[in-house]
């Protein structure tokens, strides 16, 4: 073979896109999003699942329709239509893609973030993300072995027109619910983490900023009140003293940038990601498999953009401990991201790309997205999502089951005549 260049002109386009997305992710935290969670596809879909099923899936702390998700889908759709890339297609093992989307989400919730947030976390100085990134490299490596063994989910074909609108339809329904909740009262069945609500004693004592902006009000238990900063029950018992109340931070689902800022940021990310083909696992995959480094510039740009903006806003906190919505279980972080990255490689792209493909009319991407949403609700319901304290007891068995299922899919989908 003749000489080839290893870094093409698209490297700078993807790199600039990553820089923009990372900077926006850092900025969204300054606007109210949870720490190092300006952009997290898994967390945001998890919060959306919490809005609908939080009452039964033990997700009251993370229940909010994240407008960023709606924006990303509609932004990508707009970009795809303008560039004539919108096209209904599907039929490449949608059921398996659903399962792998489910597994991707389940493992991401053990890590506490998707493959996108792993890079975002590093950009906030969270060194526990390095364990996750090591897991991503290993998972991609395993995925490459599987790809080279002839693994193939089969070709997508042209599909009925309506299947191209599945992900967009979901976004429109979410937008309707989000606006309903934003400008009215939330629907009866839904769970919504109140803005900046703090779970002083999770599930028992919950306080939130008072509606008039002056001090705090008690959301739970119903008859308790605030006395000198402490939560006091109707019978006079002190349920949580003032120090405990003051030292409790807002729950992740209650931390959010203003609605239209989130929506606009999402739209911008959607357009940029659709045009640039930014992918949070594709960079490492292509670098190892094809020796092509252009996509890798995307995640490098993301880390740089997030780092700079986090430093500007005083949000940068370098270290392994005290990191927002993260735990420091090294093995757990590695293993969870091995599974997530493997699922992503077997799907053909990270969760953000699945969403964007779905917006472009790809019903297979839509199947993965739906799997992710259902997986989020299931993971919390089944009780193996991690908390900042560490892994849940059931996390390791759950990861084991996921590994077995992925291995079975990999074996089943080896093309005989590769």
């Amino acid at each position, binding site marked *: 073979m003749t000489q080839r260049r290893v870094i093409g002109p698209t490297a700078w386009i993807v790199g600039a896109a990553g820089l923009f997305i990372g900077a926006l992710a850092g900025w969204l935290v300054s606007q109210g999003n949870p720490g190092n969670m300006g952009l997290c596809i898994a967390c945001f879909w998890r919060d959306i699942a919490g809005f609908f099923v939080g009452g039964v899936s033990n997700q009251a702390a993370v229940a909010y329709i994240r407008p960023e998700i709606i924006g990303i889908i509609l932004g990508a759709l707009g970009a795809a239509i303008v560039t004539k890339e919108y096209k209904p297609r599907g039929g490449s093992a949608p059921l398996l893609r659903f399962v792998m989307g489910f597994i991707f989400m389940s493992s991401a919730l053990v890590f506490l973030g998707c493959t996108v947030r792993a890079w975002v976390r590093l950009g906030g100085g969270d060194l526990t993300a390095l364990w996750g990134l090591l897991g991503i490299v290993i998972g991609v490596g395993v995925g490459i072995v599987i790809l080279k063994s002839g693994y*193939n989910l089969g070709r*997508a074909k042209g599909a009925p027109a309506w299947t191209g609108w599945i992900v967009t339809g979901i976004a429109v329904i979410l937008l309707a619910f989000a606006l309903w909740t934003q400008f009215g009262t939330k629907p009866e069945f839904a769970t919504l983490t109140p803005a900046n609500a703090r779970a002083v004693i999770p599930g028992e004592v919950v306080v939130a900023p008072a509606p008039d902006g002056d001090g705090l009000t008690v959301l739970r238990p119903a008859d308790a009140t605030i006395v000198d900063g402490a939560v006091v029950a109707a019978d006079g018992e002190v349920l949580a003293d003032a120090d405990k109340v003051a030292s409790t931070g807002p729950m992740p689902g209650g931390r959010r940038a203003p609605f239209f800022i989130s929506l606009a940021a999402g739209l911008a990310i959607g357009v940029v990601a659709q045009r640039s083909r930014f992918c949070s696992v594709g960079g490492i995959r292509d670098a190892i498999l094809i020796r*092509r480094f252009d996509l890798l510039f995307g995640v490098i740009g993301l880390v740089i953009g997030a780092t700079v903006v986090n430093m500007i806003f005083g949000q940068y906190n370098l270290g392994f401990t005290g990191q927002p919505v993260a735990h420091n279980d090294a093995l757990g972080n590695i293993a969870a991201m091995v599974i997530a990255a493997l699922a992503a490689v077997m799907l053909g792209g990270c969760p953000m790309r699945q969403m964007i493909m779905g917006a472009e009319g790809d019903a297979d991407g839509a199947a993965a997205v739906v799997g992710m949403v259902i997986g989020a609700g299931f993971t919390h319901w089944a009780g193996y999502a991690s908390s900042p304290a560490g892994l849940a007891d059931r996390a390791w068995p759950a990861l084991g089951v996921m590994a077995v299922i992925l291995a079975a899919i990999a074996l089943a989908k080896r093309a005989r005549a590769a």
Partner: protein
Amino acid sequence: MKEVDALGLSCPMPLMLTKKALEENPGEILVHVDSGTAKQNVVGLLSDYGFTVSVEQTGEEYRIKGMRA
């Protein structure tokens, strides 16, 4: 001329198939893809190898033609 059918395949299959075809060192290559992402990736890879690339869009697919410069 070497011809590669990557229609309907998700990442990174179009790139893998194209790279494999290039191992035979063809002077001319034609790759069929049907998504914008696959198009951009394959065009990028062919240009990396020094091909002069042209893309023709028909109704259902992109025909990416690479000629050794």
